[in-house]
């Protein structure tokens, strides 16, 4: 059995490897981020009407996040299957919970960068105004939602990664499961943005929901990722 320090070492190695692959290939920067920005611009074209954008901006930010996340997850497991690397890790007896932790960590970093871009785009394109406290709440919301999305995304990415038709299977499996994150993150972001007259204090219970979701899927993923990729 691997010790905690061995697991930590492997998780860090996997996360560093995934981020190095992104650094080498620039897929997030050159393809996913522009895609996310284009989605936000298209929302602006479709809903450009008497302040609607300011009211629905939080939901649009999180919808764009989910769509972009699907692309990032597909990519992170495509690099594993291109030359049988995930199989090689499994064959080598590398602790699956450490692989899960490392891949989730790398996904968190990429998603957080993407979400910052989307919030920035909402501020610029949709005319969103935030107080300092609202900005702090938005940051906490991003962090809490990112942990949950990364854990559930890694779990379902691993599940769909070995399946036939994985490109279409992943959205079908993943989007219903992340509905609680979409709801919680949207409500918390509404409070942070002050959309529709909501107060900043109304966002904190939703952030607690996001944290609960994150803890549940971190725990489930650590246990279930190994058997799922073994199948």
């Amino acid at each position, binding site marked *: 059995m691997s010790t905690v320090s*061995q697991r930590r*070492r*492997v998780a*860090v*190695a996997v996360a*560093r*490897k995934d981020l*190095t*692959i992104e650094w*080498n*290939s620039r897929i997030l920067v050159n393809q996913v981020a522009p895609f996310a920005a284009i989605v936000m611009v298209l929302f602006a074209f479709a809903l450009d009407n008497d302040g609607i954008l300011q009211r629905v901006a939080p939901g649009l930010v999180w919808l764009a996040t989910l769509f972009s996340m699907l692309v990032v997850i597909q990519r992170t497991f495509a*690099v594993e299957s*291109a*030359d*049988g*690397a995930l*199989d*090689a*890790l499994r*064959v*080598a*007896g*590398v602790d699956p919970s450490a692989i899960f932790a490392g891949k989730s960590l790398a996904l968190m970093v990429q998603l957080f960068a993407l979400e910052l871009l989307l919030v920035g785009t909402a501020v610029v394109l949709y005319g969103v105004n935030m107080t300092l406290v609202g900005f702090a709440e938005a940051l906490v919301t991003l962090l809490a939602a990112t942990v949950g999305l990364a854990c559930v995304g890694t779990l379902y990415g691993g599940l769909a990664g070995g399946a036939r038709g994985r490109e279409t299977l992943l959205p079908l499996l993943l989007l219903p499961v992340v509905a609680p994150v979409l709801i919680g993150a949207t409500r918390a972001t509404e409070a942070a943005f002050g959309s529709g007259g909501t107060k900043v204090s109304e966002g904190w219970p939703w952030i607690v929901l996001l944290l609960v979701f994150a803890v549940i899927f971190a725990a489930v993923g650590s246990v279930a990722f190994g058997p799922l990729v073994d199948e």
Partner: protein
Amino acid sequence: METVIELNGVVAVLGSFPALAGVNLTVQRGEILLLQGPNGAGKTSLLRVCAGLMPIERGTGTILGIDLATNRQDIRTRVGLLGHTNGLYLDLSVEQNIQFWASTVGASKDEVANAMRTMRVDGRLAKVKAGQLSAGQRRRTALASLIVRRAEIWLLDEPHAGLDAAGRDELDALLRNAVAAGATVVLASHESERAASLATRTVTVDGGGAQ
């Protein structure tokens, strides 16, 4: 001589198909054992059982003294299986790939440098992305990762596939070097003449049994 693989009457099932039907096999440290036989004979299944990937249904077996029936995960960490794919990250350079595998076992930079030198993927090649390598260079990179993983038994499925004549000669020389350095090699190959000249012993696998 130290026995590193010992299988007694091992039966393994692939779905509902009996892939191995009572295999008896003993391999000593430092051997290069060739498994030969027709397609579907059970060569790959035998390699996967030795790698701790396929459970055994009946019989007994130990790999490096570890019980196959109860402790397959520990076996996986001490053997290296190289199948039809190389297990490389195509967007990472040769050095980054090997460094990654080194990180998973805590191997030092010196070990990485030695493995790259042994498999001749150092120098200019070190900075080339795996996706831009030839088939032979990818194979050598994958073998270097087996070295840094400190695999004691190398299980190679059709290692000569995709290599040109020069690449095959080079691979044979590298495997002999690895054995000289303490590894044991079990390889399955269709190319009987070439592989037989490399092997110290040959076992024929057919109908799920080994002779």
